[in-house]
């Protein structure tokens, strides 16, 4: 053993060497690597110390054990963790939240202390585009390196337990490291050693710590274990009411089912019994993800516009050929590059550490973020090359015509394929089981619907403007473009209809998000739906009514404005409404409503409140 132990270390702080089964309940071996694995015998190099820990159970999956009956919510575990990891007041690798139920005098409160569960199937590791996460053979710990992270926060989206913490002031994520330095010298993590009430324990998985006999995988408020196979076991034997409520602002409560397990349901009334009112809340549509609202919409519009411009002449839209538009053609292409550039700059600057942007490609094997970024980067380069070849052909006078046409064809088709692939991976980013409101095929219909709607609208507005200036009719393209717009809006509408039905059926956080959509953002939601219907009606009228000139330009501009506003509102709702399947917060801590209140009233200016003053 290392010689760093304090002379009077208490016995309860030491890890126990106990027998364990070969596999855990998910069928995974407790022994993290085979006896002859080359991963054995390596140093964790903690603080530059290259010695190898002598813990005899170094290569066994460890995890936390939580006895909820014993937890008194003293927050000693949180304090010990913060002290050990030198955390800022707004950060907590471990947090204590609670759910409550019953009425006085039979009021019951269930406290839950939660940190990273060092899962068997860590979704943070697969989702991280920079490969900042590693699941170590040593103790099965999932460790994250803030020096690799570029602060996109995707791991905080995919983790069902709110374990990774995005520190907006530092621009990177960090999380519980299982106190591997303590494990190396045979000590339990700091939070466990600090627990006053014997609620928190730690050890090899599927063993039963002292004074316990239960090894449940769930507890009221704990998300489904199917997503990640977390390494935490619970004991909770005290009788609980059939219904438990969260004390944070999330409209979710937990009801006991026929099997005696608690399931999440929508809490249509607040804890104090108030019903939710139908409101606009337009100011709350603005979130930290605003750059992503712009980035996704612009990317979808640019991909759609380019595809129509490129394949338009092939499907009979002769007006869109470069020969007929010697000035509009290059101008439009350069315009597409311009707005795509704005989108890319916004999404890059949205990162905690924008200068590490190139690390987005590090995890192409697993991360949809890496694949989306790669898709957009390839699309951007192809569209750039296509624009150069067709918009500035004078630069290529030295190239034989046949070769020039070949390059034009390659870059054009390359942009079409990579653009469509990028939108596919963009939609995959949001198919996250830990965010049920997003985890639906409606994201697919919405994103590709926007490709069909916004792209052609962008194209027709520019071309119509130029044709009108030239006193030429532009109506020959209108019926076909109106078809694209109509199909796009219809896709969006159908997706939204099934989204609503499926959310209502599934219940839980998804239904709660839908509930907020129809209450907190109810009027905005109705306005968005009316916009969608108006857009559909206008698209149909464009297909059948024969108008031309200024009148048509005004009508198209109106339709475009409605469709654009609908798209922006819909996308802003998409980000503002999502509710993670996260652990319950508390009245102050990890309570979205309290955080908003603290920022509005200036409380957040005091660091000890633990809320950063501004997120965006």
């Amino acid at each position: 053993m290392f010689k760093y132990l304090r002379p009077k270390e208490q016995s309860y702080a030491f890890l126990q060497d106990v027998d364990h089964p070969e596999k855990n309940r998910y069928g995974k071996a407790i022994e993290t690597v085979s006896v002859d694995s080359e991963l054995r015998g390596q140093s964790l190099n903690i603080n530059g110390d290259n010695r190898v820990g002598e813990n005899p159970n170094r290569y066994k999956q460890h995890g936390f054990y939580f006895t909820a009956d014993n937890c008194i919510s003293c927050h000693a575990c949180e304090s010990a963790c913060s002290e050990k990891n030198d955390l800022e007041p707004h950060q907590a690798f471990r947090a204590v939240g609670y759910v409550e139920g019953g009425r006085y005098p039979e009021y019951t409160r269930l406290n839950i202390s939660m940190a990273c569960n060092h899962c068997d199937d860590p979704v943070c590791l697969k989702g991280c585009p920079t490969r900042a996460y590693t699941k170590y053979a040593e103790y099965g710990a999932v460790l994250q390196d803030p020096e690799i992270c570029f602060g996109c926060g995707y791991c905080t989206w995919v983790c069902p337990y709110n374990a990774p913490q995005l520190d907006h002031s530092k621009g990177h994520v960090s999380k519980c490291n299982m106190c591997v330095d303590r494990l190396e010298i045979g000590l339990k993590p700091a939070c466990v050693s600090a627990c006053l009430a014997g609620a928190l324990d730690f050890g090899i998985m599927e063993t039963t710590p002292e004074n316990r006999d239960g090894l449940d995988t769930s507890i009221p408020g704990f998300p489904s274990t199917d997503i990640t196979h977390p390494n935490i076991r619970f004991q909770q034997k005290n009788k609980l009411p059939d219904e438990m409520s969260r004390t944070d602002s999330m409209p979710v409560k937990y009801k006991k089912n026929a099997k005696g397990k608690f399931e999440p349901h929508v809490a249509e009334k607040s804890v104090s019994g108030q019903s939710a009112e139908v409101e606009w809340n337009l100011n709350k549509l603005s979130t930290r993800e605003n750059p992503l609202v712009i980035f996704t919409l612009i990317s979808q519009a640019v991909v759609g516009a380019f595809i129509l411009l490129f394949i338009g002449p092939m499907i009979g839209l002769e007006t869109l050929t470069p020969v007929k538009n010697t000035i509009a053609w290059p101008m439009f292409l350069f315009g597409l590059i311009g707005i795509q550039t704005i989108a890319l700059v916004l999404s890059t600057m949205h990162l905690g550490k924008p200068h590490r942007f190139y690390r987005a490609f590090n995890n192409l094997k697993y991360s949809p973020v890496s694949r989306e970024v790669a898709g957009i980067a390839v699309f951007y380069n192809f569209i750039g090359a296509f624009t150069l070849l067709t918009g500035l052909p004078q630069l290529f006078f030295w190239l034989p015509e046949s070769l020039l046409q070949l390059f034009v064809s390659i870059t054009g088709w390359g942009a079409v394929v990579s653009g469509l692939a990028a939108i596919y991976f963009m939609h995959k980013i949001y198919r996250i089981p830990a965010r049920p409101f997003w985890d639906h095929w409606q994201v697919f219909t919405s994103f590709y619907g926007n490709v069909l709607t916004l792209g052609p609208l962008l194209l027709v507005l520019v071309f119509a403007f130029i044709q009108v200036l030239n006193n030429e009719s532009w109506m020959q393209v209108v019926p076909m473009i109106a078809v694209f717009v109509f199909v796009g809006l219809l896709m969006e509408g159908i997706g939204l209809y099934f989204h609503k039905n499926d959310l209502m059926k599934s219940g839980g956080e998804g239904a709660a998000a839908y509930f907020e959509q129809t209450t907190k953002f109810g009027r905005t939601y109705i306005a968005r739906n009316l916009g969608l219907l108006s857009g559909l009606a206008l698209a149909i009228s464009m297909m059948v009514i024969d108008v031309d000139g200024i009148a048509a330009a005004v009508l198209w501009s109106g339709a475009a404005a409605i469709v654009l506003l609908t798209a922006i509102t819909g996308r802003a709702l998409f980000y503002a409404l999502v509710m993670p399947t996260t652990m319950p917060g508390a009245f102050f801590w990890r309570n979205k409503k309290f955080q908003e209140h603290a920022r509005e009233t200036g409380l957040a200016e005091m660091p000890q409140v633990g809320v950063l003053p501004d997120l965006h």
Partner: protein
Amino acid sequence: MDKYTSRRLSEIKNDFERGVFQVVYDSRKQRWHRSFALMVLIVKHVSRGLLFSWPLYLLALAAYSIPDTSILLVLFLLLPAMYVSWAILSRGVREDYENLVHGYLLRTGYIGRIIFHGKV
């Protein structure tokens, strides 16, 4: 520590060792190595930046290639592009310099380490 660099000054506790380190660190050879490393980092980051952002500069080129274009339009497109590039690249160079060069004694082969970010 790897074979291309020494320990960092901040990791050395012994006063005598720190003194020797400081003398070598301030030598003409080490200063030249650090200047060269800085240049390599600038070239590395600019090249990588251009790989992703060249269509941005294409806009300015396109504006410039149109006859009778006002120089103001070219500058309007070029200046924001250069500002964003500068903001991103300068931070990248500074971070890499801090992590890979500053406070180290550089030995033969350090260029590979700088280019491949510690993978050599």
